[in-house]
């Protein structure tokens, strides 16, 4: 049993523990009832999709600086994972919205932001798929990742002014809909950590795959 397998088992166990805690330790919340449990899935995946976006942009900058193809692989893999997590966050958010506000979609600022994140990831991956030459693809994709990274702060600023929000305030805000009890905060923190670890594990697997494929090509 090597270190990777150990790591993987730890992540699986931790994920199991968190899921167990979400269904047993976390009490139903007044007004939301058992629906609050969705948040323990929704918040971590949303957090990871933003993290993936950040990693993708940083890797893009590093690629432009060093021209090492590994960074391009990191940027691409992270974007792919980000798209996946972003989809999960969007769907779980929409389900939550349907059950609590009565509609799947109402262009709430957060829905809008995450939808645009989806668009950016989608555009980034579509752009990659249309360029055949490897180095060109890496450079162009890196510039695109950085450009989209520059526009995101503008979105964060402009969108809340355009659309009124029903979305709960960010977690660490006592006045929001979700009054966080300490036990819930602990479970949530654990869920975020586990979710980030899953992302990290998938990312390193993805990169290893790309690297071994490149080695094969060279041989």
């Amino acid at each position: 049993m090597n270190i990777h397998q150990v790591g993987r088992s730890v992540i699986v166990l931790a994920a199991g523990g968190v899921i167990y805690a979400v269904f047993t330790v976390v009490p139903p919340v007044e007004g939301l009832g058992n629906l609050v449990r969705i948040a323990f899935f929704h918040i971590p995946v949303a957090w990871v999709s933003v993290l993936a976006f950040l990693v993708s942009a940083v890797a893009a900058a590093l690629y432009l600086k060093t021209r090492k193809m590994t960074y391009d692989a990191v940027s691409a893999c992270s974007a792919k994972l980000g798209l996946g997590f972003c989809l999960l966050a969007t769907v779980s958010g929409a389900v939550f919205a349907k059950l609590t506000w009565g509609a799947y979609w109402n262009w709430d600022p957060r829905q809008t932001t995450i939808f645009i994140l989806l668009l950016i990831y989608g555009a980034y991956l579509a752009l990659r798929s249309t360029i055949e030459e490897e180095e060109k693809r890496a450079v162009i994709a890196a510039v695109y990742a950085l450009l989209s990274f520059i526009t995101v702060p503008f979105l964060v600023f402009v969108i809340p002014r355009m659309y009124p929000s029903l979305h709960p305030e960010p977690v660490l805000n006592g006045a929001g809909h979700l009054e966080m009890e300490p036990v819930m905060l602990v479970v949530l923190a654990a869920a975020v950590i586990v979710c980030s670890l899953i992302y990290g594990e998938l990312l390193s697997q993805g990169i290893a795959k790309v690297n071994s494929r490149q080695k094969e090509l060279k041989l």
Partner: protein
Amino acid sequence: MAVPGLRFDQALQAILIKDLRCEFRSRYATGTLVMFALTTLASVSMATAGTGLTPEFAAALLWVVLFFCAMAGLARVFVQEQEIGTLLGLRLYASGQAVFCGKSLFNLLLLLGLAVLVVPLFVVFFNLEIGNWLLFSLTLVLGCIGMAVVATIMAVMVMAAQSKQAIFTVITFPILLPQFLSGVQAVSQVLAGNEPDGLVFMAGYDIAVIAAGLLLFDYLWND
């Protein structure tokens, strides 16, 4: 046999004048753009004939028309160089920054020309009252600067891609969204007779994309 010091302003001027001259003679972009604008405008106007438009809706339509015109025409600045085979020479003899600025300016002039054509038609077709022309024009100019600059960067990206036109729209839209949304909001405020409050924001976006273009364009140009 002098090695010339590359003069940025000279190169920029050369590119801009060359593009304007070629465009004036061939009218490739303008012809398509004008017809495209008229078609979109007419289709929207016919579809909504008789219904009074709210300022928000009219503002959104105006920007949608301008955005899709930009998507239809602005990628040409590089795709055409590629098609006629002058791209290699341009890459050999011109610096990335000069090309970026020259082409962005050309795209901006195209867009502004288009706006000058579209806006009066818009006013006529949709029976709009524009109270403050100065603020209205300022909003349009700020929006067009962002569109022209982003379209120029994206146009050089799609040169290496297949199905250039489709991917051009796909990758430009998310980047332009902040400007698009605040443009819609600002115009709807002007149409409603209020002062638009997002102009500083729009100018900030323009400055950010121009700076990003100046920094990043060389990577795209030299490879």
